[in-house]
C-alpha cells in the first residue's frame, strides 16, 4: 500500500497541471455541494419553523369522509368535513409515544358580509382553542394592533394581509374593538382611501359547511395580527375562538352537548343507520310496547335539561382537522402509517396526511423547489464527473508506457486500479476536503448576513422570511458521501482505460 500511495502522490506532483484542474473541479463541486446541502437543510429547518411549527404540525388528521387531503389551501372553497369524535381521537393520541402534541382546529371558508350593501368578502376561518393554539405554535403570530384572544374570549384576530384585502374589495377597514380610525396609523397604501374607509370593529361572518347550510354570527375583532412568515398565505386565515366557529359553521358547539342515557341512545342508532327499520315488524314504531318506549325516551331529555348545566368540554364539539406535532427524530411517513392503522383498528374515523399534502400546492411547491435545487446540485456533479473522467482518461492514455511497463514487470490489473483510485482519492481528499471546509465557512457567512425577503416564493425557498442556511453534522457527512460517490464514479472509466493497457502497448509505443 505504501508503494501505491508513494507512486500516486508523486504522480500527482509530477502532473501538477492536470492535478490542479481535477482538484479545482473537485473543490468547486464540493463547495457547491456543501452550500447546496446547507441551503436545502436551511430550507427544511425554515419550513419546519414557518409551516410545521407555526401552522400545520408534522401530520394533519382529517375526517375519513374528507375527499381531498388538501385542507388548508383549497382554492375552490370546498368545505372540510367535520370530525365529531375528537374526544376519542385525543384519548388515542395521548397514548402514542411518538406524538409530542396535538391541536384540533376548525377550518372552513366564510363570507364576510358587507352591512353597507356592497359586495361581500371571503375569509378562511381557523377556529381554535386559543390557549392550546398558542401552546402548540408559540410565537407563530404577533399582535400588531389591539390584543391577543384570551382563553374564554369570543372574537376574531384579523391578519394584516386579510385586513388590506377586505379594504381593497369592500372598503371595510377592520380594527380592534375600542380603537378609532386614525389616519396616521394607516399603512401607506391604504392612506389614499382614508375618506372612503368604512371602519368596523366587528365582522358578520357567514360560514358554509359541507351540507351547504349557512349561519351568520357577529364577532368582535380583538386584534390585528401578523404571522411569522408567509403572510400572504397564512394572512388569509382569520383566527376565531372555536365555539364561535362552530356556531358560524352550524356545527354543534361544546355547549350544545347533552348527556343521553344509554336507554335512549337507541333512538340515535335508528336515525343514523336505517330509517326503514322503523317500519319493520320489529321496529319500535310498530310495536305498542316499542311506541311506549319511544314516547318515554322523548320525554326524558327535557327532564335532563332542567338539571344544572354541565361544565363545557370544548372537545365535545365538532372540529375539521387535528394538527399533530411529532417528537424529535420521528419519521413522519412511518407515523402516518401507524396513525392510519390505529384509525382503522379503533374505528376512529380519521385519515392521517403529511403537512405537505394538507397544504396542497404550497406543500408541493416546497417539494418542487427542493427538488430543483437537488437536480441543480446533481447536474453540477454530472458536469464535474464528465470533466474529471475526461482528464483522468487522458492522463491514463498519456501514461501508457509507464502503466504498460508496470504490467510487464508483474503488476496486476488490480494494482493499476488501486493506484488510479489512490491518486483520485488523494485529490478528492485534499481539494474536495478544502471545498467542503469552504462550503461550511460559506454557509456560516451567509447565515450571518440575515438575508430577508417579503416575497412568498422566496420565503418558501428560504423556508421563512430570513435565509438561514445551516449545516448539521449529518449534512457534512452527506457532502463527504457525495464527494466519495463523485470520486468513485469519476474514476471508474479512467481505471478501465488504465487496466486495458497491456505491456505490449508500452513496447509498441516505443
Amino acid at each position: 500500500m505504501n508503494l501505491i500511495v508513494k507512486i500516486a502522490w508523486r504522480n500527482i506532483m509530477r502532473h501538477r497541471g492536470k492535478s490542479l484542474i481535477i482538484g479545482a473541479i473537485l473543490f468547486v463541486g464540493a463547495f457547491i455541494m456543501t452550500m447546496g446541502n446547507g441551503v436545502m437543510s436551511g430550507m427544511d429547518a425554515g419550513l419546519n419553523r414557518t409551516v410545521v411549527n407555526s401552522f400545520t404540525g408534522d401530520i394533519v388528521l382529517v375526517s375519513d369522509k374528507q375527499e381531498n387531503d388538501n385542507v388548508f389551501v383549497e382554492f375552490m372553497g370546498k368545505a372540510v368535513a367535520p370530525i365529531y369524535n375528537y374526544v376519542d381521537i385525543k384519548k388515542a393520541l395521548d397514548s402514542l409515544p411518538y406524538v409530542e402534541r396535538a391541536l384540533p382546529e376548525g377550518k372552513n371558508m366564510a363570507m364576510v358580509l358587507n352591512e353597507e350593501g356592497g359586495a361581500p368578502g371571503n375569509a378562511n376561518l381557523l377556529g381554535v382553542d386559543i390557549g392550546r393554539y398558542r401552546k402548540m405554535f408559540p410565537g407563530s403570530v404577533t399582535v400588531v394592533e389591539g390584543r391577543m384572544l384570551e382563553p374564554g374570549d369570543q372574537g376574531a384576530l384579523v391578519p394584516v394581509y386579510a385586513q388590506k384585502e377586505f379594504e381593497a374589495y369592500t372598503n371595510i377597514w377592520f380594527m380592534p374593538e375600542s380603537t378609532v380610525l386614525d389616519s396616521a396609523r394607516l399603512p401607506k397604501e391604504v392612506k389614499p382611501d382614508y375618506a372612503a374607509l368604512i371602519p368596523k370593529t366587528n365582522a358578520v361572518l357567514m360560514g358554509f359547511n359541507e351540507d351547504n347550510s349557512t349561519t351568520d354570527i357577529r364577532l368582535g375583532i380583538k386584534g390585528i395580527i401578523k404571522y411569522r412568515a408567509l403572510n400572504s398565505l397564512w394572512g388569509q386565515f382569520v383566527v376565531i375562538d372555536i365555539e364561535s366557529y362552530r356556531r358560524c359553521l352550524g356545527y354543534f358547539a361544546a355547549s350544545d352537548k347533552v348527556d343521553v342515557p344509554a336507554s335512549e341512545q337507541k333512538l340515535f342508532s335508528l336515525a343514523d343507520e336505517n330509517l326503514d327499520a322503523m317500519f319493520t315488524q320489529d321496529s319500535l314504531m310498530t310495536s305498542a310496547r316499542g311506541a311506549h318506549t319511544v314516547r318515554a325516551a322523548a320525554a326524558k331529555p327535557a327532564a335532563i335539561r332542567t338539571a344544572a348545566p354541565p361544565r363545557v368540554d370544548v372537545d365535545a364539539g365538532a372540529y375539521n382537522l387535528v394538527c399533530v406535532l411529532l417528537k424529535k427524530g420521528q419519521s413522519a411517513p412511518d407515523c402516518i402509517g401507524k396513525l392510519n392503522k390505529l384509525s382503522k383498528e379503533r374505528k376512529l374515523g380519521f385519515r392521517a396526511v403529511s403537512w405537505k399534502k394538507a397544504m396542497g400546492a404550497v406543500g408541493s411547491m416546497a417539494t418542487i423547489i427542493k427538488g430543483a435545487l437537488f437536480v441543480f446540485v446533481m447536474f453540477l456533479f454530472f458536469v464535474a464527473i464528465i470533466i474529471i473522467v475526461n482528464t483522468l482518461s487522458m492522463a491514463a492514455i498519456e501514461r501508457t508506457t509507464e502503466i504498460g511497463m508496470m504490467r510487464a514487470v508483474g503488476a496486476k490489473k488490480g494494482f493499476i486500479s488501486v493506484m488510479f483510485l489512490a491518486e483520485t482519492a488523494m485529490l478528492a481528499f485534499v481539494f474536495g476536503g478544502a471545498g467542503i471546509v469552504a462550503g461550511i465557512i460559506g454557509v456560516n457567512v451567509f447565515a450571518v448576513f440575515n438575508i430577508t425577503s417579503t416575497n412568498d416564493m422566496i420565503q418558501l425557498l428560504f423556508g421563512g422570511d430570513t435565509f438561514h442556511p445551516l449545516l448539521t453534522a449529518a449534512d457534512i457527512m452527506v457532502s463527504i458521501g457525495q464527494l466519495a460517490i463523485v470520486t468513485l464514479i469519476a474514476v471508474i472509466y479512467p481505471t478501465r482505460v488504465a487496466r486495458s493497457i497491456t505491456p505490449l502497448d508500452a513496447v509498441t509505443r516505443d
Partner: protein
Amino acid sequence: MNIIETRGLKKNYALGTTTVHALRGIDLAIEKGDFLSIVGPSGSGKTTLLNIIGCIDFATEGSVRVGDLEITSLSDRQITDIRLHKIGFIFQTFNLIPVLNALENVEFPLLLMKDHSRVDVKKKSEQLLDAVGLADYMKHKPAELSGGQRQRVAIARALVTNPDIILADEPTANLDSVTGASILDSMREMNKREHTTFIFSTHDANVLKYASHVIKIKDGLITKE
C-alpha cells in the same frame, strides 16, 4: 533441460485490410543457463518472438512452454504471475517508472511479490545496483541518469526477482559502444554466476561475440541455429 519450447509458433497482425505474418511457424528449444542471441534484420520478427516468449504478446497459432507451463491457455492473472516470478525484461528504451528513484525502481517487482521483508527488499536492491556500478546513484530519478545508467537500473530490476529467464530486446541499441560492451559484460557475468537464461535480440555484430548460441531469423522463420 529446456526452459523454453515453442512449436509451430505463428503470429499474424491485421494491418488495414492486409494481414502481416510476423512469425510463420517457429520451432525453438532453449536450454536453461543459455546466453542466446536472436539476430535478424528489422521486421524479421525478433521482437515479436521475444514478446511472445516473455508473455507480453499472444501467439495466433502454435504452443509456447515456459518452464513447466503451457502459456497459451493461461489467464491474464496467471500470465502476470509468470512475468513477475519467472521472467525479467530489459527493454530497448530503458522503461523505468519516472516517479521512482533508481533504488525504488529496482525494489518495485520485489514489492509486488509481497513475500520479502522491507529490509530484504532494500538490501537485495542495493546489492544489485552496487553490482551494476550504481551505488552512488540509488536516489537518482530516471530523468537524472544517463542512458547507460538507466539501462543498468533496468538490468538490476530484471535480476532482482531471481527470474529463470531474462529477455532483452536490443539492450545496447541506444547506448554508445563502450557502455553497450559494459552492459553486455554485466549480463554475461550474471549469466555465469546465477545461471540465468539470457535471450537478447540484436542486429549488432559486436554483440554476437558474447552469445553462447545464435538464432538467425528472417521473414518470421528461423533460418539458422
